[in-house]
Structures are given as C-alpha cells and as structure tokens.
C-alpha cells in the first residue's frame, strides 16, 4: 500500500534525524567532560535548585572566597517543575546546570543512569552525612551520585489544647511517652482521643500516615534486584489494612488529601489533633494554622524513626566544569554551611556534625509552644534506622498506593478490597 510505504519512508527519515542529533549531542557532552585541574581561571557555575535550599547568601560568600567563580542560580518553584526541567534536559542530552539539586524522591530513577552523574565519592567527605542519607544516593557499585543537603526527620506535631480537652496528657514529654512504641499504640491512643473529643479526628490523612509506616519497611515494593513484589508482599498489605482500619473503621482520619484546599482550610477548623511532621512541615503548619494556638511537637515517632524529604546536589556529566562544580558542591554541603542555611531558611541539615552545632541545638519555635525543635529534630534524625530500598518503579507504585488509600479514605468510591484490586491492576500496568 502506498500510504504504508510513505509512512515507512517518513519514519526512516525521522530516525536519521534523531540519530544525527543524538550523536552530535553526546559528542558535545564528551568533549565537555574535562575533569582536569581546578585552577584560577574564571569560571561561571550554574546551580539548579528548587523550593528552599537556603543557599542565596552562601553563593555570595563563595564568590567572595573564590573571586574567579561566578555563580548563576537557576531556581524552580516546586520539585515537580524542577524534575520536569531536569528530565527534559537529560532526555535531550544537554542544557543541565553544572550542579543540579535533586530531591530524594527522584533518586531511584536517577540511580539507574549513574553515568549521567559524576561519582562524588571522596575520602574527604566520608562520614560527613548520616549513614542512611548517603546510602540512599549510592549505587550498588559504590558510586555516590549526590552530596546530601537537608533532611526531613519526622516527629509528631499535635494540638496540646485538644489533647487537654479530651483528657489526654498534653505536655510534650508525656505525649512522647504515650506515643512511643508501635503504630498500633499510636492508633490506640487515637481511639481514646476520638472517643473523648467532639468530632475531632486523630490524624489528617490515611495517605500521609501510611507514608510514615511504609518508609520503615526495607523492601516494600521491590526486592533488591528490582523485581516488583508490591502486590504479593504481606507487609504492604498488612500496613494497607491497618491504616484503613484506623482511618475508616475506627474513624481516626479527617479524610483529607494533603496539600488540597480542604486540607489547607482544615488547619483553621480543628479538624484533627496530630500530624506526622518532618522539620520542613513546621513552617507549613504555622502558615496554614495562623492564629490557632496549641500546636506543639513531641520527640517521638511510632515504629522507629522516619524521614520525609530532603535533597542532594549532583553534578551531571554533561557539564563543562565538573571539577569546579564538585568543589562548590562539597563546600555548600559542609556542616558549617548547612548550619548557615538552616539558620537562614530552616532547612534541616543531614550532616552529622551539623546536628551537634549549638546554633542548631539551641533553636526553639515560638509557634510550637517554644519547643526545642532543633534538639527534637536532631534526635529524630539519629533515630532513623531503615534505608528503604527504592527501585526504578518505587514512585509509580507508591503513587498507585496513595491513590488506593485516597479512594477509600477520602473519595469513598471503593472499599478496601476493591481498591486493593485496582491497585493490583495499576501495578500490573507499569
């Protein structure tokens, strides 16, 4: 058929074009990869960040220390936008910054392509970070693709006033004692609270709570070879059922989806009494709950420690100034600098030494009843024991799981069984 012949011809033409461009593109990248000396030649380094890294003043400081270096800051608002940007440029084979900030969530997909990133392992930085922080960014072969910046150790934020009303202990030491233990202990305390409170839920969302639980599982969705085990893993199914039992059957959830308008508005309406909160969540709560009194944070996390979020600095091998870039990345992620970033924007450091600094340990938060947040979060950071394995499909599977929970907890379009079936279908389609 004529039309088919024509289509074939067109595809072939496209192929040539595509090949030609890719070939040229990668050729350019190779030439650029000069890992040579780091002299005093003038160099401009571009640094891509998103959200809040707290680096603005540090860039100025570095430029003063190194007059030959000019730093160009490329900032994206959200991590989603930064990820789209990074992906486009990785796919196109050019255009990345000399240093690219990445979020811990993207590590699994990037670790699959370690040749896109410079190996940053270096005796000089050994032991700089908490073990789990480094482990997450290290390939099986021992290549370190990113230097840790901040971390998101989690405690439990709670409403002391509502606790008091419901007859529960409300000072942060007693609350920590009460919630210390397993997730079942946390849910049991919730049942006690809900029984005594007037329509106030225990936590905001099944999905957020599940996330705290699943991050304590070593191999949740994939085994160490990357084979998908999510739908057969009884650990996953158990957590799924436990959190939905607590959320729906026991009525502990406020049936909200994080970040949605209803969730934002709920901070003004006493909708729930506790929330799992990483350090960076404190500012979110304070902003949304402005004018509400009674928030506090307890130095505890059910089932062991937990981390949510945090970022790394990587050096793409596309870049022309990898040696200079590495110097800058190493300097930025040194404990002294991260403490400064913490002081300026509250990004909580992932460096061991930084957790011992007086500036950090002395920090208190007025909105959270003057809680010693620096000390609490430092304790929470060291309490993290498990580095969950996240293979290439981790986030797609986790998205499907979050949707499964939302269908039951928020949307009420499914019961736990039918929603699980849909989860199985979704995982099968990956």
């Amino acid at each position, binding site marked *: 058929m004529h039309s088919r012949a024509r289509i074939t011809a067109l595809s072939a033409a496209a192929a040539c074009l595509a090949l030609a461009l890719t070939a040229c593109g990668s050729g350019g990248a190779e030439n650029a990869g000069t890992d040579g000396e780091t002299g005093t030649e003038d160099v401009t380094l571009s640094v891509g960040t998103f959200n809040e890294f707290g680096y603005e003043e540090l860039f100025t400081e570095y430029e003063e220390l190194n007059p030959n270096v000019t730093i160009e800051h490329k900032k994206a608002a959200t991590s989603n936008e930064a990820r789209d940007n990074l992906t486009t440029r990785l796919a196109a084979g050019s255009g990345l910054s000399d240093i690219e900030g990445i979020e811990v969530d993207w590590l699994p997909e990037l670790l699959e392509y370690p040749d896109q990133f410079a190996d940053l392992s270096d005796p000089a930085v050994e032991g700089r970070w908490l073990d789990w922080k480094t482990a997450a960014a290290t390939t099986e072969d021992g290549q370190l693709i990113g230097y840790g910046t901040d971390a998101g150790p989690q405690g439990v934020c709670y409403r002391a006033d509502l606790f008091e009303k419901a007859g529960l202990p409300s000072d942060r030491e007693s609350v920590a004692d009460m919630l210390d233990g397993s997730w079942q202990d946390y849910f049991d305390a919730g049942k006690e609270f809900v029984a005594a409170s007037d329509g106030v839920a225990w936590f905001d969302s099944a999905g957020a709570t599940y996330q705290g639980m699943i991050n304590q599982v070593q191999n949740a969705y994939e085994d160490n070879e990357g084979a998908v085990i999510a739908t057969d893993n009884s650990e996953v199914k158990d957590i799924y059922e436990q959190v939905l039992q607590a959320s729906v059957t026991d009525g502990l959830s406020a049936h909200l989806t994080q970040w949605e*308008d209803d969730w934002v508005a709920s901070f003004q309406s006493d909708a729930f009494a506790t929330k799992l909160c990483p350090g960076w969540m404190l500012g979110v709560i304070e902003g949304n709950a402005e004018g509400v009194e009674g928030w506090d944070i307890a130095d505890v996390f059910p089932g062991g420690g937990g981390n949510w979020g945090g970022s790394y600095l990587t050096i793409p091998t596309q870049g022309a100034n990898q040696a200079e870039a590495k110097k800058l990345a190493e300097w930025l992620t040194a404990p002294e600098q991260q403490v400064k970033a913490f002081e300026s924007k509250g990004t909580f450091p992932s460096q061991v030494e930084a957790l011992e600094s007086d500036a950090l340990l002395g920090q208190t938060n007025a909105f959270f009843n003057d809680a010693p947040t620096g000390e609490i979060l430092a304790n929470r950071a060291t309490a993290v024991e498990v580095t969950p394995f996240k293979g290439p499909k981790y986030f797609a599977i986790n998205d499907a799981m979050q949707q499964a929970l939302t269908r039951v907890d*928020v*949307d009420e379009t499914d019961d736990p069984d039918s929603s699980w079936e849909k989860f199985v279908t979704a995982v099968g389609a990956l």
Partner: protein
Amino acid sequence: MAVTDRVHTPPPTRQRAPRDKSVKRLAFSQKVSKWDVKLSPYLYISPFFLLFAVTGLFPLLYTAWVSLHSWNLIGGQGEFTGLENYEFVLAQPFFWNAVGNTFSIFLLSSVPQVVIAIAIAAVLDANLRARTFWRMGVLVPFVVAPVAVGLIFNNLFADQAGLVNEMLVGVGLDPVRWHSDSLASHAAIATMVNFRWTGYNALIFLAAMQAIPRDVYEAATIDGAGRLRQFFSVTVPMLRPTIIFVVITATIGGLQIFDEARVFDQAGLGGADRQWQTLTMYIWELGWGQRNFGRASAVAWLLFLIIVIIAMANFLITRRIANQGGRQ
C-alpha cells in the same frame, strides 16, 4: 476542509501594442510576471512550512520513531519493538478511561461554550450603550494569569470548604463531591474551560453577526418573522462558516485538554480513581511519571489520529446542521 475551490480568471498580463524597442523588455517582464504568479504563493506560505519542519514536523516524526521502540525518557532509545507499545496501551483500561474522560469533558465544555457564546454575541449585537466596555469586558477572562485561575477554581470547587458547596448547602441542597464523582469533576473542569474561552468565542461570533447585512433582517421583518425566528432562520445559517471555524478549533483544543484538568488537584494525575484523567494527562503520566517515552509517544499518536477523525466528523456534522437550520 473549509477550503473551496474557486474559479479564478487567469492572471492578466499586459496587452499593449508592441513597440520596436520594448519588445524584448516586455517579453522579459512577462516572463518575470509569470514566475511571480507561479512562485509567489509558495513563497508566501513557506514561512509556516519552514518553521513547521523544524519545530513541528521533527517532533512529530521523532515521536513516531520513539513510539516504535522501548524508550526510557532518561535512558534513551532501547530496542525496536514495532507496534508493541500501541498494542499495550490499546489493551489498557486506563487508556479507554482517559478516552471517555476526554470526550466527556470535551462535550461538557465545547457544546455549552458554543451555544452560550452565540447567545452572548446575539446580545452584544444589540444596539447597546457603552459598547466597547461590554465587548472588552467579556474578554477579561482571557488575560487572567493561569496560576490565579487554578487557585480560584480549586477554592470554589473544594469538596468541603469550597464556595460552591457552601452555597449549595446554603440553599438546602446536598454538597457535590467534585473530586470523587467522575461527572461532577468533568463539570467543574468544563466550567474552568468555558470561563476562559466563551467570551473569546462570543467575540468571533459577534464579528460574523455584524457582517450580516441589515436589509436581510428588514426583509425578514416585512415577512413577519419574529426576532427568535430571525435568529434561527437568518443569523444562524449565515454564521455557518464561523461556527465551523469555532467548532474545529474548539475540537482540536478540547481534545487536547491538559492544563485545566491537571491543576484540578495538587497531585495532577487525574484523581485517585482517574476520574478526570484525560488523554494528554495519560501521556504525561506515561512519559514523565513512569518515564516510558515509548508508550507515551504511542498514545500521543493515537490522540493525533482521534483528533483528526473527530475534527473531520465535526466539520461534516456542523455543515449539515447549519444547512438544515437554514431550511427549516
């Protein structure tokens, strides 16, 4: 499509009595003129096609090539798989769900949009005071920053705290579950789309209405036709080409709906049960979420074919309806 062949008279050339000296020059200028006539059209349309070759055709063919391979967005080209990606996505319930959602949102947005736009245009066509004010006023939604549109409609359609539900409860109705009921979510998204485009389309219709000569109406009035009758028997048939233009552009835009559906919640995946996941969002999920560039490209090509087919069908249907409207 909306192309009609016209019978043109051949371009005239100068016909003057030949004079000795200018014969050669005349012949030369006739030659130039001939080439001018022949080549100019191609020259005039060439900017579009040149640009399209670089910024449109290459991406299109690149996508076709990608769709025939196993291709990771970051990892790049894998092995040639033929039509496997197409077979895979066509077998996915998620694909057909996205097709259904796309058409549902498309119908809910384009049909009311065209009807309301005509109604607004008819009103604006009246002998109004402060005409410029009203006409520019309906175009204001077009300039509102997208971030503001997303924010405000999320605020309006929040399931618990949203203004729309508060008003529904206020008048004694049940609140609508905008983010869990499929049809309700489509209606909310269609509202966003209609908000942005109705005024714009109204002005296009108004433009066409203003070009209808007044004595046609006068003749109709003498024949005793009421205003409503005039509208359907005179205005609508004479708007036919404009309706076709609007329907075709609205079809193409509507079937590619992305932004409004994506900002309808924070996750941007089309709802926990994919209640409002459209085809373009499915492309996005496959390509940018799962990094499966091959499958995403396959869906992109399928969508392209769907749009072409529907745009053709719409063209034929619209033409027929508008014709019948004139004969009733």
